[in-house]
């Protein structure tokens, strides 16, 4: 199948990725190509087949909800683009 421009713009918005005007044609073409490949799926009859999420059909293992780690906030914020007083800084969201 081929995608149209508005579909690509919508997906790029959902994924929060800016696509510049001069990249649009290439993006459209390569995504349409990939979607044509994966559309082979549609020909398979999967009526009544249970979807497989974990290849071993295993359930995630649970553990007791206990504190096992100490606080690493300062280490983690050392590599943040912008952090101050234990907070991550971003452009103003609320006026």
């Amino acid at each position, binding site marked *: 199948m081929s995608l149209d421009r508005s579909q690509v713009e919508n997906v790029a918005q959902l*994924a929060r*990725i800016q696509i510049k005007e001069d990249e649009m044609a290439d993006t459209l073409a390569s995504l349409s*190509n990939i*979607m044509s490949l994966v559309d082979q799926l549609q020909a398979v009859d999967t009526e009544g087949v249970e979807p497989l999420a974990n290849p071993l059909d295993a359930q995630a293992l649970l553990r007791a909800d206990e504190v096992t780690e100490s606080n690493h906030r300062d*280490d983690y914020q050392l590599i943040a683009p912008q952090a101050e007083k234990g907070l991550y800084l971003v*452009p103003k969201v609320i006026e």
Partner: protein
Amino acid sequence: MLDKTIKQLSEGLAAGEFSSEELTRSYLKAIEAKNPEINAFITVTSEQALAQAKAADAKLHEKQAGPLTGIPIAHKDIFCTQGVRTSCGSRMLDNFIAPYESTVTHRLAEAGTVMLGKTNLDEFAMGSSTESSFYGPTRNPWQLDTVPGGSSGGSAAAVAAGMAAAATGTDTGGSIRQPAAFCGLTGLKPTYGRVSRWGMIAYGSSLDSGGPLSRTAEDAAIMLNAIAGHDPKDATSMDRPVDDYTSRLNEPLKGLRIGLPKEYFGEGLDSGIADVVHQAVAELKQLGAVVKEISLPRTELSIPAYYIIAPAEASTNLSRYDGVRYGHRCDDPADLEDLYKRTRAEGFGAEVKRRILVGTYALSAGYYDAYYRKAQQLRRLIKEDFQSAFDQVDVILGPTTPSVAWKVGEKDNDPVSMYLEDIYTLSVNLAGLPGLSVPCGLSQGLPVGLQLIGNYFDESLLLNIGHQYQQVSDWHQRRPA
């Protein structure tokens, strides 16, 4: 010394023929000489390596050494290594100094290995050629104008060129087995859940498996012994007993039932590859194996199923790169939305963006059932095909790849043609099975990989077959000129 196996090096260290420090210095020298041309390493950790080597020498001196003590290895730059840049081949993480250690690298360090550095990969492990890295392509040491495979291409090239004794890799759709095949190495993708994913930067979480790239099956067994096992930090890691993977290496293959899937020998397979794989089958028969044809009818459908499931999981996993907590952030964002969009547009390369967009589309409202759910249903059918095959045979054998290493740049503008190269490896990840690639010949002067696919948790059998084959063949001893 630099083309010896882990086993041989370990014996040399124990006998005092050389120290780990001498060995480590030799590898560092080889990296200095060869890496500018091959570009296998993104980061070389010389100081850390020498410190680890000295510690290993102390252990050796005290006769407290294990099979990996003092062995210099390289880690794919997808494993978080505390205090060392962990880039995942992306501009997004070019400045990311990991604040914690992955379980795989931690366990290997505990086992006494020396970390030489971090190896190149396709950006976020998305590729089959190690060309999409932010740090430029890695070259195949066998022919420098060809690709080493991917995504663990830096690891494969490092070992093949004698810049490390072995290396770690990850395999989401073939990313250990295919570069091992292209570079003449042994590569093991363990059963899903056998090796912890903690600290292994996520691509497709229901597919990702960490494992070794090494010179021999025996070395792969030694490496797997160190990294396999349950880890409470990974909820999908399986809590079940771990074999000593070296214990069955010497068992005879008499009566072993090998299945050859007819779909792995059909149209699209390079005839030179078909020839050497058939020769390997003949040698296994000589060792007592019984061979029969089987069918994995949905092999071709593994491509569309994979290229929905992996991108869908990737689009979710990579949403964490938002320019807020770590990694790249764009300059002067106008507002939060602009920060996200430009950070991600600048930080990710073309193939990563493509896969995020495809995955986002497949998961978006109105399309989920048609794509993601459908692909997961097909995934169950693919798993069932393998299960019926394992009712008849002990192991499945075929080529690892349909062609040998292609030329650097050859598939640049055609992602779909590269996706098709993964035809024999993808279904193994979809089913979560273990797979081993061992070198079995040359075609057009380039190495060919033989793939063995085992039943769940049957790594010991795969390594046994690989080891027995390597007792009667010498392809694993060939080195690039």
